[in-house]
């Protein structure tokens, strides 16, 4: 019966034919059609049904037929005719090693039940052909066949046969027609295609057509770099030899050698011809070099290059274009006109940040160096990315600035910074034997804490995060000592400018411990309590990489029946009140874990008040008296020495000066040289009162800050045992030290889950007990290799093997090989 187009019908019945593995009812349900439903033919409903069925990717053919009911012309019967795609029941790959098959199956998405289409087979075949051609199997053959599987409904068995053939190597590359440039030079210009050679046993001389094509361009570029502007490859032939090798014959035409003539700039108003010439760096009479010219105008390989395009980009001219045009070629001299369309300077309009699922806007926006209304400058975008990475809240490898909606007419541009949050909290839970007993440590540090949400139950997901504050807690306990510390810092105190406020508390109690009997005597104890408050600020002058910091710290030592090398008095106290002032410049980056460029400098001074000026004691008399009694063993004399020492150290009087500077230089690829040195000096205002036994330097070993009573500083010098340069002659530590080091680093991976790099170092340092002995060139030297692994949840882990060339005091053997472990200490 004829269906009248555009009529509305009621569905009287639906039939599905051609099904093999599906149930008819299922298909009807999927179509969404119901008996009794009104539809228009042709109309949206049926088109939708077809679209839906196609969408399942299960059928090769879908037809819908409609027939009018002969008795009731307003009713129709629908018939859906389907051809199901066969599914793969079994498959087999021949010609590829078993262990490589899984990877291939994953790539071609083949598994039992996969619906087979012609296009799938064709795509798979091409995929495999390309894959092996890229590996140098120029003669690879792939055959994919299917045959019905009689054991199962609507299924096929698939056989993928790969015949890789022999790897084809390049035996010779011959150049014909080259007179000015040697064949050797031209061959070396071909970066990817190389001829077989005895010296290339670790690299294959594969023939990969795509790479070969780019190499042909490189050959022509090589000529262009040497003035042969017209050079071209007339023909190239690939000859297959019997021994599975290839001979490549390249027929070149060199043409004449050209020189640069006049170069004129047109259209420049912002920069003078002189400035542009300087940046271009090409003079009249120079050998023509098309590649260099392009590079000086816009170097595509280096986005930060000093080229003309960047000159404009960095001063707001986002919409500028720079085009070199040959205006005349007389004899061998080519005149150029560099046409510049400056366009309007671009200003930032909207600045957006996305991907911050944890860190609040205000923490990010205050760090951005591109703000609405500012002139567009590429350097500022680059610096923003660097500084966002340094916050430590985002994956440095994934921060991408996207320049959007550039509008040349309005002179505006938007930028969106896409960030990916990374874990910035670390938990340290440690137990181990050390110092004669079990030591347990619990450390928590949160780098992106939110103090204002600490009472807000909603914010615990699992902790209040996102305000960029850092909070850390550390508890350490063993049989004979406990230490607690807490610190908090807010990088933008007050929210107006980058002024870091930090506060910390610590408390330690230690009991007398006998290493031989392993007994703890609680009647002998030593308590230390301390608090410090600091404020540091980023400066604007001389440049804004500078930080100025100040801190005030107070420490109280309380001894009860506890004699030690620090104090000759067993019962008594000591206070240390000090003011620290520091200036530092930190421009290393962009990734704080693996800086590639920049430098870090810092200079600081820690000062106590000059108590001896006003406490009315005669220290020279006391010093004399103490000297006389020092060697006496008489009890009264010993008590008197203790009394004098209590007077010398009731308030610690000292000053300490430190300097350190390190440069990061990117040598080649990702190879980085870290070079620099440091220096420290602890002095006294009053030589009769003497240098305090606190705050001293201990040089040698891993430099890890361990539990200390006395504010000591451990200085890393690998290749020597921990603290060995400062403790061999006396227990007291050094008052002056210096150190130089060179370290080469190369990254193995810089992924978010783990950053790993290897290093090799040369360093030297020395420590002295007084300024008179100081000789900065009398160094203890060492060299070695090491590895660092940084994982966000664990912090830094590392191991170094160092060889110390010199002997430490008290021995005449070289220090020899030493192994150092680095844990938690960063960078």
């Amino acid at each position, binding site marked *: 019966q004829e269906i009248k187009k555009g009529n509305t019908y009621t569905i009287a019945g639906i039939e599905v034919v051609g099904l093999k593995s599906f149930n008819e009812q299922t298909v009807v349900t999927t179509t969404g059609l119901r008996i009794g439903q009104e539809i228009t033919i042709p109309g949206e409903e049926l088109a939708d049904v077809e679209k839906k069925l196609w969408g399942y990717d299960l059928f090769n053919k879908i037809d819908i037929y409609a027939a009018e009911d002969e008795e009731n012309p307003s009713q129709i019967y629908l018939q859906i005719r389907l051809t199901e795609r066969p599914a793969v029941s079994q498959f087999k790959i021949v010609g590829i090693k078993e262990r490589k098959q899984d990877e291939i199956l994953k790539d071609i998405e083949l598994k039992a039940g996969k619906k087979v289409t012609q296009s799938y087979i064709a795509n798979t075949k091409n995929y495999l052909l390309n894959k092996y051609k890229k590996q140098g199997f120029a003669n690879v053959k792939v055959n994919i066949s299917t045959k019905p599987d009689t054991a199962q409904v609507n299924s096929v068995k698939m056989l993928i046969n790969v015949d890789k053939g022999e790897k084809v190597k390049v035996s010779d590359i011959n150049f014909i027609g080259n007179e000015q440039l040697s064949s050797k030079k031209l061959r070396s210009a071909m970066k990817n295609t190389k001829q077989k050679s005895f010296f290339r046993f670790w690299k294959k001389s594969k023939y990969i057509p795509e790479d070969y094509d780019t190499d042909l361009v490189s050959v022509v570029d090589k000529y262009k770099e040497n003035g042969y502007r017209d050079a071209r490859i007339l023909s190239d032939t690939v000859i297959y030899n019997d021994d599975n090798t290839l001979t490549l014959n390249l027929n070149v035409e060199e043409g004449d050698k050209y020189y640069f003539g006049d170069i004129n700039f047109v259209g420049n108003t912002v920069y003078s011809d002189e400035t542009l010439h300087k940046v271009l760096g090409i003079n009249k009479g120079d050998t023509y070099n098309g590649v260099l010219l392009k590079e000086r105008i816009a170097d595509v390989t280096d986005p930060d290059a000093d080229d003309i395009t960047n000159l404009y980009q960095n001063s707001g001219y986002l919409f500028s274009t720079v085009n070199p045009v040959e205006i005349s070629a007389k004899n061998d001299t080519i005149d150029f006109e560099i046409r510049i369309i400056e366009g309007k300077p671009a200003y930032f309009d909207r600045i957006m940040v996305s991907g911050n*699922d944890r860190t609040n806007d205000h923490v990010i926006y205050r760090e951005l160096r591109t703000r609405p209304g500012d002139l567009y400058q590429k350097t500022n975008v680059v610096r923003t990315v660097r500084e966002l990475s340094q916050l430590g809240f985002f994956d440095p490898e994934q921060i991408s600035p996207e320049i959007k909606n550039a509008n040349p007419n309005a002179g505006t541009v938007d930028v969106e910074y896409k960030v990916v949050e990374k874990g910035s909290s670390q938990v340290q839970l440690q137990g181990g034997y050390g110092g004669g007993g079990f030591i347990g440590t619990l450390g928590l540090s949160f780098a992106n804490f939110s103090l204002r949400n600490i009472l807000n139950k909603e914010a615990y997901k699992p902790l209040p995060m996102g305000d960029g504050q850092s909070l850390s807690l550390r508890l350490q306990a063993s049989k004979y000592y406990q230490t607690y510390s807490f610190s908090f810092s807010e990088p933008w105190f007050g929210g107006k400018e980058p002024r870091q406020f930090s506060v910390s508390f610590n408390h330690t109690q230690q009991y007398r411990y006998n290493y031989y009997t392993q007994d703890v005597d609680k009647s002998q104890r030593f308590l230390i309590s301390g608090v410090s408050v600091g404020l540091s600020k980023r400066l604007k002058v001389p440049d804004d990489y500078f930080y100025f910091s100040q801190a005030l710290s107070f420490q109280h030592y309380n001894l009860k029946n506890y004699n030690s090398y620090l104090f000759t008095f067993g019962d008594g106290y000591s206070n240390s009140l000090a003011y620290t002032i520091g200036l530092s410049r930190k421009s290393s980056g962009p990734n704080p874990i693996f800086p590639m460029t920049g430098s870090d400098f810092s200079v600081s001074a820690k000062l106590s008040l000059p108590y001896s000026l006003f406490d009315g004691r005669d220290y020279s008399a006391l010093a004399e008296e103490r000297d006389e009694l020092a060697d006496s063993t008489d009890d009264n004399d010993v008590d008197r020495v203790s009394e004098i020492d209590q007077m010398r150290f009731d308030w610690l009087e000292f000053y300490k000066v430190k300097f350190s500077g390190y440069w990061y230089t990117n040598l080649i690829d990702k190879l980085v040289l870290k070079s620099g040195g440091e220096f420290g000096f602890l002095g006294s205002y009053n030589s009769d009162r003497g240098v305090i036994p606190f705050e001293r330097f201990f040089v040698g070993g891993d430099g890890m800050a361990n539990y200390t009573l006395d504010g000591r500083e451990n200085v890393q010098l690998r290749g020597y045992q921990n603290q060995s340069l400062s403790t061999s002659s006396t227990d007291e530590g050094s008052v002056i030290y210096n150190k130089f080091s060179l370290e080469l680093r190369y990254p193995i991976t810089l992924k978010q889950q783990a950053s790993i790099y290897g290093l090799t170092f040369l360093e030297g340092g020395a420590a002295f007990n007084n300024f008179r002995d100081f000789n900065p060139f009398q160094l203890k030297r060492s060299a070695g290799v090491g590895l660092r692994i940084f994982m966000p949840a664990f912090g830094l882990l590392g191991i170094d093997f160092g060889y110390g060339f010199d002997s430490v005091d008290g021995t005449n053997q070289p220090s020899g090989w030493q192994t150092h472990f680095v844990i938690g200490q960063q960078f």
Partner: protein
Amino acid sequence: CSEYQKALKSEDTGVKYTMAEQLYNEGKYSKANRLFEQILPKYVGKPQGERVMYMYADAAYQVNDYYLAAYQFERFANSYPKSSKAQEAAYLSAKATYLTSPKFSLDQTETYDALNKLQNYINKYPNSEYLQETNQLVQDLTQKLEKKDLEIAKQYKKTFKYKSSIKSIENFLVDYPGSELKEEALFVKLEATYELAVNSFEYLIKDRLEQAQEAYDDLIKYYPNTSFSDEATKIQESITEELSKRS
């Protein structure tokens, strides 16, 4: 081994279905969900599929798993457009997405997503019974975006980047002409223009004070009884004073 554990491990889809429905009716949604998750693929395209998918989505919604609920409700609405529950599912999908939207100071991908879904819902069901709620949700989300932009503009002002603050406010006024925060935005603009003016080089001050005066006039024009009137008046007085020194 409880009956629930048996059902979880059972090979029989029917057993799982009965158990899941029972748990769902008893309000034990998270347990029910584990079963629904297992059986849903087996019922796709079958008559019971409609019920299963709805219960699965609803159970996820009940246990506050809004990401899953939004996805399953949306899937339901697309798979069964003729179902009597289709409209409700479309609404709940949008609402679940609304509930995933984080606070204003974080990435707002979910907010845009929810706005999109709510708008589609309104277009599709212009006479819906949920229309009032839907409009309320849209308003909430829009206000969140407005607050985000305004807070960023305020931060620019706080960190002494007055020009950026002004520019951001101007963009804000273009983006959200009818915003409830417009009054505050205009006031922030007044503060920023004034601060910019008085912190400028002498030769720029006069021009910029006049711009600050315009910002004041704008605020008063739209909000004659503004709640910021005390501070605004104070600023206006010093504008006049500074200007009189320079005329």
